C-alpha cells in the first residue's frame, strides 16, 4: 500500500535554502527600519558605538591634556567648555564613551548570563534545586542595592573590575525571576518532553533545547538591564566609588561635582555627562521597546484604514 507523497506548497521550495540566520537578520533590519522607535534607538547606539570605537575622529583634543584656559564656558574651540584643570570637556565626553559603554555591556551581558543559567535551571530541574536557587535569587533581590554597592565598593580595591563585579552581583537577580517564569511556562512544551523521552541529558535539554528558544527574552533582558546599569555605574562613580583615574562619564560627574562646576561657571561640565548617560539609557530603552514589538506582533500599533467599508 503506497502512501501518497505529500504535495508541498509552491512557495515553500527554495525558502529553506537561506539559512535561518540570514532570514532573521533580513527580517530584523526591515523591522527596525519600519519602526520609528527602533530606528531612533539604533541610531543613538550606533553613534555612541562609533564614538567609543573611534573617539579620535570626533574629538581632536587630548582629553587629559590640561593645557587650555580653565573653567570657561562653551565656545567655538571648546564646544562644552573646559574643566577646572583646563581640559576640553567635549573631548572628555567623547573619549569617556568607550569605558562607559564597555562597563555597561559587560555587566549586562554577564548578569543576563548568570540570571539565565540560574533561572532556567531552577525552572527545569524543579524540586530542591529550584527552591535553593530561588532562595538565593530572593536574597539577592531583597538586599538593598545602593548600600550594598557602597559597602562592597569601599572594601574592594577601587577600579573598573570591582565596579563590574559589584554591579553584576546586584543586578542579576531581577531577570532571574523572570527567566524562571518563562522557563516554567516552557517546561511543559511537548518538544522538551520529547527531548526527555528520547533520552537527552538534563544539561543538554537546558542548554540546547530551552535556552535557544528564549533568545528574544534574553536580548530583552540584556537591553532592559543596560538601561539601568549605565545609570547605576555613573551613580557609583559619581559617589567616588569607581576608579577616579579612569575616564568615564561617571568620573566626569565626580570631578565636576568636586570642583563645583555648576557654580564655577561651566555648568556643561556637570550637565553633559549626565545628559549622555540619559541618552545611552534612552538608546537601549528604545531598542528594547522596538524589540518587543518586533518579536511580538500583538504589541504592534494597530493602523486602521480610513473610512468605513463601502457597500
Amino acid at each position, binding site marked *: *500500500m503506497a*502512501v*501518497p*507523497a*505529500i504535495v508541498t506548497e509552491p512557495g*515553500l*521550495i527554495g*525558502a*529553506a*535554502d537561506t539559512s*535561518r540566520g540570514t532570514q532573521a537578520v533580513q527580517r530584523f533590519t526591515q523591522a527596525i527600519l519600519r519602526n520609528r522607535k527602533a530606528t531612533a534607538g539604533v541610531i543613538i547606539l550606533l553613534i555612541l558605538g562609533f564614538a567609543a570605537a573611534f573617539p579620535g575622529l570626533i574629538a581632536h583634543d587630548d582629553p587629559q591634556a590640561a593645557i587650555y584656559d580653565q573653567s570657561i564656558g562653551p565656545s567655538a574651540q571648546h564646544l562644552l567648555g573646559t574643566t577646572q584643570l583646563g581640559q576640553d570637556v567635549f573631548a572628555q565626553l567623547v573619549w569617556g564613551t568607550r569605558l562607559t559603554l564597555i562597563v555597561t555591556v559587560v555587566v549586562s551581558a554577564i548578569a543576563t548570563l548568570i540570571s539565565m543559567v540560574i533561572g532556567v535551571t531552577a525552572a527545569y530541574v524543579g524540586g530542591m534545586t529550584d527552591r535553593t536557587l530561588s532562595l538565593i535569587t530572593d536574597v539577592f533581590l531583597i538586599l538593598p542595592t545602593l548600600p550594598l554597592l557602597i559597602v562592597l565598593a569601599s572594601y574592594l580595591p577601587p577600579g573598573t573590575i570591582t565596579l563590574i563585579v559589584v554591579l553584576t552581583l546586584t543586578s542579576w537577580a531581577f531577570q532571574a525571576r523572570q527567566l524562571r517564569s518563562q522557563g516554567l511556562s516552557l517546561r511543559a*512544551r*511537548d*518538544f522538551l*518532553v*520529547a*527531548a*526527555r*523521552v*528520547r*533520552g*537527552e541529558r538534563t544539561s543538554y535539554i537546558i542548554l540546547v*533545547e530551552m535556552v*535557544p*528558544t528564549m*533568545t528574544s527574552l534574553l536580548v530583552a533582558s540584556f537591553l532592559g538591564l543596560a538601561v539601568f546599569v549605565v545609570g547605576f555605574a555613573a551613580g557609583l562613580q559619581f559617589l567616588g566609588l569607581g576608579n577616579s583615574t579612569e575616564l568615564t562619564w561617571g568620573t566626569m560627574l565626580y570631578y565636576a561635582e568636586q570642583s563645583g562646576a555648576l557654580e564655577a561657571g561651566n555648568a556643561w561640565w556637570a550637565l553633559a555627562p549626565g545628559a549622555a548617560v540619559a541618552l545611552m539609557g534612552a538608546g537601549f530603552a528604545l531598542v528594547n521597546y522596538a524589540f518587543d514589538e518586533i518579536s511580538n506582533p500583538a504589541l504592534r500599533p494597530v493602523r486602521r484604514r480610513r473610512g468605513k467599508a463601502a457597500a
Partner: protein
Amino acid sequence: MPDQPPSVATPSATAGALLRTDGLTRHFRLGGFFSKLVLHAVDDLDMTIGEREIVALVGESGSGKTTVARLLAKVYRPTAGEIHFRDRSVRSLRSRKDVLWYRGEVPMVFQDPYSAMNPVYRVAHGVLRNLKLHRPELDRVQRRLEAERVFETVGLTPGAAMLRKFPYEMSGGQRQRVGFAQALAVRPKLILADEPVSMLDVSIRAGILNMMAKLRDEEDVSILYITHDIASARYVADRLIVMYAGHAVETGPTEVVLSRPKHPYTQLLLSAVPDPTERTPTVTADSGEPPRVINPTEGCRFRWRCPIAVEECGRVTPRLRRMGTAHEAACHRAIPDGVQAVAEMSPAAQTVSETAP
C-alpha cells in the same frame, strides 16, 4: 490510494507479549502540603501489547489514557504496579545505559504538531539526535542517509529537501509525519502515539492513519494508539482497550468489541458517536459528566451513570472478566458470550443472551 481498509492482524495470545502491565497505578497528590486529596489517574491496569499490532487505548478526558502513555514512556514513575517490556521490568532500569536502551525501543509521538518540535531548529534535528543517541554504530554520513530514509518512509519526499525545512514551513500533517519519522529512526518495537491525529484536519487524518497501518505491516513495529475517537480506533486498531476513570473497562479485538460491547460505558460511547444517517438522534439520559477520580471509593466508578447498576456495583470494584475469545469486560452485570441470562434478574435489567460467534 488504498482501495481496501488496513488489514487487521489476527489477535495474538498474550504469551510472548511485547509489553505487559501488571496492576499499573499512578496517583497524584492534589493541593498543598497538608491536603489529603489524591487523584487516581490510573488504577490497577493490566494490559498487553503484542508484536506487530496496533492497540487503541480509547477513553474520554479524565480516563487516564494520557497518564498511561507517560507511564510507559517513563516520564512518570508508577505509584504501584509493574511494566514489563520484553520480559524486563521497566522499573528496574536505572542506569543510563538501560534507560537509553528502553527509550530506543519505545519512543513517543505527541499530540500537538505545533509544539512537539523545537521551532529554533530544522526538522532534521530530532531525527538526527535520535540516531546519534540510539544508533551509535552509524557515522555522520550514514545518519544523514538514514534520516532521509525514514522521512521517505513516512511520506515526506524528497527526504533530503524535507529535512532542511523548519517546523514553521510545514503543515500540521507533515509535522506529525516528522514525529513518526523520529520514532522510526530508532528502529523501535513499540511506538506510543498520544492522540496523533486529534489536532489535525479531518482530511489529513486518513493519511496518517493509513501510514500507521503501513508502519505496522512493513516496519515490523507495534503502535499504542491513544485516542478519544472510537471511530478512528476502529479504522486502524487490531485491538481495543476502553478506559474509564483510570480503569480498563473492556478489551478485545476491535470488531468484536464494537459489534458486541459488553460494558455499559462502551455501549454508551458507541451510541453517542454522531451518525449522519441517523436523522433523529436517540436521547440519552447521560449528560457526559466527568468521572470521579479524586479519593474514589470502592466499587465501579461508572455506577452513577450506569443504567443497569445494582447494589454490588457500589461495593465491589469489578475486575476484567472473560466474555469471549480474547474479549474481557469489567462489569458485574455483563453477560459473557454463550451464557444464558439469569432468570432472577429484573425484567428491566435482563439482557438478551448472545450466542457464540
